[in-house]
């Protein structure tokens, strides 16, 4: 299986969004300033990757994102909705507390989106164990 056939990372304004495939899961790491056009490009990119790689889960790590406004919130919700139609589950990981407080006040609680405190817990939610040892049962 060739995996990423023809789909590199989302590119825009000199930034790239790393999208890694870890087994059955795509790990997308958002960091810093994400321009609107870049977020939309990312949506297309992730959706194409899900289809090409046939992963069953997507983890979007936003621990490096300082603000989520209604535009980015909508894009994240649409990524999750598109993934669901392609039989993949999406988990949003690592939201900063200040971002959570702001989103609630903004009126954007992203009800359809599953969340986890960090990437490791997100992977666990998707049935992927990232930490080995420690006398696993």
């Amino acid at each position, binding site marked *: 299986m060739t995996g990423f056939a023809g789909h590199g990372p989302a590119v825009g*304004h000199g930034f790239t969004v790393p999208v890694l495939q870890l087994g059955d899961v795509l790990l997308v790491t958002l960091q810093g300033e994400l321009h609107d056009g870049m977020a939309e490009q990312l949506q297309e990119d992730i959706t194409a990757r899900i289809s090409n790689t046939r992963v069953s889960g997507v983890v979007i790590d936003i621990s490096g994102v300082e*603000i989520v406004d209604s535009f980015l919130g909508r894009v994240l919700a649409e990524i999750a909705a598109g993934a669901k139609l392609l039989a993949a589950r999406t988990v949003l990981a690592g939201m900063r507390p200040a971002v959570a407080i702001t989103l609630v006040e903004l*009126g*954007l609680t992203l009800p359809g989106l599953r969340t986890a405190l960090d990437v490791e817990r997100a992977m666990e939610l998707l049935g992927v164990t990232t930490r080995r040892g420690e006398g696993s049962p």
Partner: protein
Amino acid sequence: MMQASRHAGPADLPIGSDADLAWVRQQVRQAAAELGFGLVQQTKLVTAASELARNTLVHGGGGHVRITPLDAGSTHGLRLDFVDTGPGIRDLDQALTDGYTSGGGLGLGLSGAKRLVQEFEVDSRPGEGTTVTVTAWATVVPPSRTVP
């Protein structure tokens, strides 16, 4: 001398592209941090600024934002004026309603931004443009208590 000029007066930033929105967010955050805003306050103000700057770009056809540091006794504030010369807002009450959208968004831009700041004002004239002015304070001054 350089330090003094930093807070000396308002700064105007253009709003004409995605990249400008990102620049506005960065500059608002930096100004708020310098004025002593806490992390949550900074995040709220930057988020409000992002919503309003996008409105200026998408609905107003572009414009600018004026960032003005404010002093009120011991506390500092930041005023942001988002100015466009677009078509104006026809029905302001409707535009301020959660969920109402004319641009394909979530309809939380104006109403959401209003909740994220302490002062909020819209001046819109049909055919001339819209100015949205918001103010946030680093320390929220509690209403003065009447001591019996």
